[in-house]
């Protein structure tokens, strides 16, 4: 059976198994659990004390608590990833056996936050070597050991970028003459026009 929220693939077996675990807590508590899980997905921190209080009525063991957080994270992140609207999500979850009240609670939380979730997922997408800072300085060389009157402007550029493999910041400093810098600027402006045309 193909499900849109799983990206048009079969639903994983563990999700099917844990949906029945989710059905054991009341729908109100499940909505509050969803709110906590969404906070965790948005990196706002999850309050494990609240979670254990919510699940204590249904006598969840620590394994069950972990499983229900995992399955809610999977459903919400997957639905945001594949840009599923909340009605399709609701019907698909009911097909999988999640009771109607639980599904409505979950879908309401999803609908409120799905744009924020997609933004967070977009930010955490793979990006290699992010540029962190650019500093520049214009100097004017008066004379040097080779030539008495140099009178040439130069630009010093300091780029701080993230190394793609180690994720640490690497600093590169270059000094550019006026002509080379003009070429660099023109080429980069052409690239910028192309990027703006695409947006």
């Amino acid at each position, binding site marked *: 059976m193909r499900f849109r929220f799983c990206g048009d693939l079969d639903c994983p077996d563990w999700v099917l198994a844990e949906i029945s675990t989710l059905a054991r807590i009341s729908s109100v508590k499940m909505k509050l659990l969803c709110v906590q899980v969404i906070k965790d997905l948005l990196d706002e921190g999850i309050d494990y004390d609240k979670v254990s209080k919510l699940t204590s009525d249904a006598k969840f063991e620590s394994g069950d608590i972990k499983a229900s957080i995992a399955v809610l994270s999977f459903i919400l992140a997957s639905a945001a990833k594949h840009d599923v609207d909340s009605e399709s999500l609701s019907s698909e979850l009911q097909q999988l056996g999640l009771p109607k009240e639980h599904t409505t609670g979950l879908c309401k939380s999803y609908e409120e936050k799905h744009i924020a979730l997609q933004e967070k997922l977009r930010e955490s*997408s*793979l*990006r*290699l070597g992010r540029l962190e800072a650019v500093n520049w300085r214009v100097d004017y060389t008066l004379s040097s050991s080779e030539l008495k009157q140099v009178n040439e402007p130069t630009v010093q550029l300091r780029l701080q970028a993230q190394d*793609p*493999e*180690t*994720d640490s910041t690497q600093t590169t400093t270059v000094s550019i003459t006026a002509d080379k810098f003009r070429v660099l600027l023109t*080429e980069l402006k052409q*690239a910028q026009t*192309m990027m703006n045309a*695409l947006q």
Partner: protein
Amino acid sequence: MLLVLSEEHKEHLGFLSEVDPAVVGEFGRIAVEFLKKGSNPKIYEGAARKLNVSSESIQHGVEGLMYLLTESSKLMISEVDFQDSVLVLGFSEELNKLLLQLYLENRKEIRQILSKLGPSLPHYHNLEWRLDVQLASRALRHQVKPTVTLKLHLEDGAKRSAHVLQTDPATLQHLIHELERALTELKSSHCRRILRNIK
């Protein structure tokens, strides 16, 4: 298979026959704790004061017990062999039974800890990917070139490393095909025969 204990080892364990069996039980428990979490020298001081002996003999006794347990678990010796090996030390019947009990209860866990100590290769930790399309470069405009960028995270003990790879979709298809062939190899009759015999 009998365990051969060195003279020094026998001397260290000889200390255990001078104390109560209850104390030996306590030492056994401390030895197992140390095997799981690492040794804590402060415990030796406390025990030395209570029993009125030097902390060095306590340390030797506990470490002797640890070594006895790890060697027996490593070689997975049977009960009879363990009892015969321990007979050499000349302990009382009660002490022998206590040591046997200690060995049998903790054997599985000690073996699990020992299995993690072997040398290992870096293994898979996480894979991030991204699909891009190159539209233009400084040299050529109006291109359409899809590429897949992968960041493979590997873990080797405590060290994490990341490798950045890039491929075009055709190579990726070939890679997937080869990996699927490797997986189906597991289901071939030759592999299944070997797996059945190991289990």
